[in-house]
């Protein structure tokens, strides 16, 4: 389906790790996107938050990044949704709900938590990896691909 790209994977991963460390060094926070983004929703939920500005700035950085990448000479990043829209919609609902219920996602638990050797994050990561792999496997079986 997609090619194994070890070099760019290693470089990109290092940048992700660096960003996580940098956020801790500057703002003292875990770089867990689900949590940071949920905080941006606070005004929508009627909850005032004093730490809204840095959260919005972080999300803005994420948004701008692929544009910066291209401005710096990178090729337009490959994007293939690879799924029917219904899957994307239901997936979004589950990712939103699940990340809040489980207190984190691939960045918060998978990168930040595991690197801190947090028991909770190791369990969370193993759990969502397993359920994600199982989901893709079942979809493959059912679609007869």
């Amino acid at each position, binding site marked *: 389906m997609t090619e194994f790209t070890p070099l760019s994977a290693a470089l990109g991963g290092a940048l*992700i790790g660096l960003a996580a460390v940098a956020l801790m060094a500057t703002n003292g926070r875990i770089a867990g996107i689900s949590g940071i*983004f949920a905080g941006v929703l606070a005004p929508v939920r009627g909850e005032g938050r004093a730490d809204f500005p840095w959260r919005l700035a972080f999300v803005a*950085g994420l948004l701008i990044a692929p544009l910066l990448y291209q401005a710096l000479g990178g090729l337009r990043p490959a994007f293939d949704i690879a799924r029917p829209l219904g899957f994307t919609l239901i997936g979004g609902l589950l990712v939103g709900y699940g990340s809040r*219920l489980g207190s984190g996602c691939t960045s918060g638990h998978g990168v930040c938590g595991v690197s801190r050797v947090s028991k909770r994050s190791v369990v*969370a990561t193993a759990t969502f990896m397993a359920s994600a792999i199982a989901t893709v496997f079942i979809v493959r079986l059912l679609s007869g691909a």
Partner: protein
Amino acid sequence: MKVLSALAVGLIFGLGLTVSGMINPAKIIGFLDIGGAWDPSLLVVMASALAVASVGYRIVLARAKPAFEDKFQLPTKTEIDRPLMLGSALFGIGWGLSGLCPGPAISAAALGDGAVYVFLLAMVAGMLLKDGWKSA
């Protein structure tokens, strides 16, 4: 300063996601698809991120405080409870169905594919469903 640093960190994080191809759902599903043509790239991304973060965190957390705040804000829970397990399982199903998760989806929004906006709106709905509203 903490707003500027957050912006810069968001940019670096997003660049990492972009460079590694993690904003491409096909690449995520390629990793999760162990029964198909397997693309282990995500494993390398994780390993690299973990290598940097585990060393970096150790250095940074040995300090008295972060640069622009009074203290480090680290998670305090240690128990492996039902919400953690159930939430992670549900998250994984959603991730497996869509090939997207919060960080990559936000970055991918810049590429303009309408499907990403559908994901993001649904993700917001899912978060609001869980977190609820303050009564007016």
